[in-house]
């Protein structure tokens, strides 16, 4: 029953490689930058897809989690720690090799968090926030849940916009590269950065994360937990009566999706070399929801396809100044005419039934 899933993931891998080769041969490597960014945004969308489509919980605040990841990674790797260098904490951190040293233009020593440390801190902070907010928020339903998550997103936006630590309206720039692998003989230095020469490398870093993320989530959906999530979506009361701790599953999914968003935030911030408040804005959250909806809600592949496609087009500037309007329009049109997404299972099933009604017995156990 797993073959179809694995073929899909392998196909994705092939496609990723093929696109890179194509840009190489046709001399259009400049596409890689936007493809890399689209990949990271798609990571947010994948997580949200499981939350919305499978656990059935809407979140209008997911840009908030992306921002927690991105902003913390940026702030921790750009704020100099030397003023605190004689505090115990900083000394211990330094001793453990969790800090890195730099130099300012006058040659003075500066002290920053190692990107690995900031990455882990940022993602943990997002997970913790999801835990703390999720416990009360996920008790809500419908309009209340939507408003509460919208409120959460707004608060995060206000915080980054108003605090000097996060650079207020300017955001944070000059975020250093995130070195993933270095000093291993025979391997080049692998780092997440917007460096021109690292374009191909970064394209593959981003896409391996997407592929890994997709595989993990597809596995999850096929598992016992995935079945529980879908049953919550189908009828919460009944899931409860079947012994499923619905509150706990919703919370865990919320945290999982927050982790995906935060990880995307961390990596994209290192890739872009900075982050600004618009990343935390409500429009971003709505955009993520829109893309999940277009993809068909409970459809990982749909969310991924649409996530890459729409983000890529948007980043290429196809929609010009109508960027946000396009996403608003998409939301409305999809919800009016194809609430199950344009890649909807029902449409696919209709096609499938039309072509192969006889093989359906043999395929047996597949569940997607």
């Amino acid at each position, binding site marked *: 029953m797993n073959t179809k899933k694995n073929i899909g993931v392998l196909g994705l891998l092939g496609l990723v490689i093929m696109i890179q080769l194509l840009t190489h041969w046709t001399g259009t490597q400049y596409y890689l930058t936007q493809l890399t960014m689209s990949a990271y945004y798609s990571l947010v969308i994948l997580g949200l897809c499981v939350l919305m489509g499978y656990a059935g919980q809407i979140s209008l605040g997911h840009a908030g989690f992306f921002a927690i990841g991105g902003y913390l990674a940026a702030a921790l790797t750009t704020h100099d720690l030397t003023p605190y260098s004689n505090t115990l904490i900083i000394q211990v951190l330094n001793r453990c090799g969790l800090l890195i040293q730099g130099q300012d233009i006058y040659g003075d020593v500066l002290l920053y968090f190692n990107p690995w440390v900031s990455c882990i801190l940022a993602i943990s902070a997002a997970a913790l926030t999801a835990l703390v907010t999720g416990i009360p928020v996920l008790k809500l339903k419908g309009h209340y849940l939507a408003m509460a998550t919208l409120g959460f997103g707004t608060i995060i936006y206000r915080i980054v916009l108003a605090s000097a630590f996060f650079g207020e309206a300017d955001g944070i720039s000059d975020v250093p590269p995130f070195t993933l692998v270095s000093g291993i003989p025979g391997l080049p230095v692998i780092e997440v950065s917007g460096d021109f020469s690292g374009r191909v490398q970064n394209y593959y870093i981003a896409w391996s994360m997407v592929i890994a993320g997709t595989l993990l989530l597809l*596995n999850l959906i096929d598992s016992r937990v995935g079945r529980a999530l879908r049953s919550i*979506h189908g009828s919460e009361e009944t899931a409860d009566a079947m012994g*499923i701790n619905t509150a706990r599953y919703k919370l865990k999914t919320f945290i999982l999706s927050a982790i995906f968003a935060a990880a995307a935030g961390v990596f994209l911030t290192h890739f872009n070399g900075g982050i600004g408040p618009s990343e935390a804005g409500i429009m971003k959250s709505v955009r993520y929801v829109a893309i999940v909806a277009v993809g068909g809600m409970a459809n990982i592949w749909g969310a991924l396809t649409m996530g890459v496609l729409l983000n890529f087009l948007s980043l290429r500037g196809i929609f010009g100044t109508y960027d946000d309007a396009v996403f608003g329009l998409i939301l409305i049109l999809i919800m009016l005419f194809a609430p199950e997404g344009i890649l909807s299972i029902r449409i696919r099933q209709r096609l499938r039934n039309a072509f192969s009604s006889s093989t359906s017995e043999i395929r047996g156990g597949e569940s997607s």
Partner: protein
Amino acid sequence: MALLEIHRLNKKFGGLHAVNNVSLTVKKGMIKAVIGPNGAGKTTLFNLIAGNLSPSSGSVVFRNHELQGLKPYQVARMGMSRTFQNIKLFSGMTALENVMAGRHVRSRAGFLAGMFNLPHTWREEAGIRQKSMDLMKLLEIEEFAHKESTSLAFGQQRAVEMARALNTEPELLLLDEPAAGLNMKETAELGRLITKIREMGITILLVEHDMSLVMDISDEITVLSFGHKIAEGKPAAIQQNPEVIKIYLGEN
């Protein structure tokens, strides 16, 4: 101690006293029926037992545990499972998946195991699938296993719901009007099935309007009317009970 003991249970909805001082015991291994006219409070009683509603006063003791304050999922984990009067299947899932979801309490794989598709989950999944298919065979719905559950015919949906409830391996099975919407032949089959389930060692508490079915299979009957328990006893005795006759004649 009986399997399920209900003491002076009350439930008020605003001014409406839906369940009024009802006491009831269900002994292990029996088939017990609750009957009564529409709006008598039967479904409310079930909801109180299963933890979907919390009582205004009174207690429910299941397997020697007081259920006060427990959530439905906790009650389910203690070995109580139910079907609903207005069938509640998981839409968007196949019949098989619905039944498999019933196996939730009897399996363990968590988020990480699921995401990383760890080998030990494979055996568990295969077991769940096997067990679910067996149950569907027992209920003669295996041919619909891969159909979207909510697209099935009414009777088949009821069977899926029953299979799902059985899949939790309950001690006590609550059935709310399982024969509603079935024809006479199907009802008779249902009767045989319920007896078969009892033979598997599962105690059954059922709400039912179909008198012939109730009289046929139950060991004991409780009659509710306007929230009150007005009679209790063996089917033969209930049939003779003048108050019960009055209610049912009055109703017709």
